[in-house]
């Protein structure tokens, strides 16, 4: 799955996701990716977020919406991402999930849920500081 946030020079924001979902899913199953607020969310007045992982669980918590609303109230992107993950972890400690967050001034962060075999989450950033696509890794919480 890819979830992407793009913010233009003057702060206009867009988000998108694309996936082929879970292997061996029951036909008709749809994950979190196409659900606004779950797979991704964008509000140019605040920022955006995009989630990835086990969509059957992720979609129950609208993590992207939650992260954007936390950033609206002043939370930094990394903390907003972490809170969204903690909300899921509270109910599903073994959930496979991660999220990226960006605010409309270009601040960004990410978080993931630490489970066996998944202790770091890679995400890719391109901004004027990096001047190239740079893969970052965040330690899962």
């Amino acid at each position: 799955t890819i979830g992407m946030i793009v913010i233009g020079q003057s702060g206009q924001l867009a988000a998108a996701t694309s996936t082929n979902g879970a292997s061996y899913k029951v036909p008709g199953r749809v994950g979190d990716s196409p659900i606004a607020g779950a797979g991704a969310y964008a509000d140019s007045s605040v920022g955006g977020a995009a989630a990835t992982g086990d969509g059957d669980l992720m979609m129950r918590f609208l993590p992207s919406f939650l992260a954007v609303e936390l950033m609206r109230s002043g939370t930094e992107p990394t903390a907003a991402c972490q809170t969204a993950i903690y909300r899921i972890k509270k109910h599903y400690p073994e959930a496979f999930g991660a999220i990226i967050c960006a605010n409309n001034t270009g601040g960004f962060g990410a978080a993931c849920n630490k489970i066996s075999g998944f202790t770091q989450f890679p995400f890719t950033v391109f901004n004027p500081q990096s001047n190239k696509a740079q893969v970052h890794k965040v330690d899962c919480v």
Partner: protein
Amino acid sequence: GTILPLVINTWGFENATVTAWYALQAGASPLDAVQKGCSVCEEEQCDGSVGYGGHPDETGETTLDALIMNGDTMEVGAVGDLRRVKNAVGVARAVMEHTQHTFLVGESASAFAQDMGFKSESLSTNDSMKTFTQWLSQKCQPNYRKNVFPDPSGTCGPYKPRAGVKPRQKRGFLNLRSHD
């Protein structure tokens, strides 16, 4: 301080990031840039979890989900369980631009895509069919069914509901490459 523009995406899909970035630099809107970035992953079948030829369902078919959202206008276009169309994020954009709806699913989403000019073609590949065949040979394991008979933990379907539903059951398997 403000550090813009910004392109950020999940996982290490650098070609998607670069494509979106250079689209922005060429004057594309963030909406166009994010669509182009995700489209690249669909074409490249990023880590097998995006685009055609990956993660077949119980019948061996690959289906796609996608969303696009404009943070200026709060417009959203989305498709779920899209069949036989490779450019899922493009169809999501078409939902946004050519309907007053938000989310189309299944065969009807595919019919809409065809009407909008998207090519209809199989999303299966030799790899996805091999994956599916192996799953069948492993008695359909892993398996997302529960509270059905025959026992889904060791038998393929078709399944019927089992009388009595067990309380919440822990998810029994994890495939870190199989993500939404």
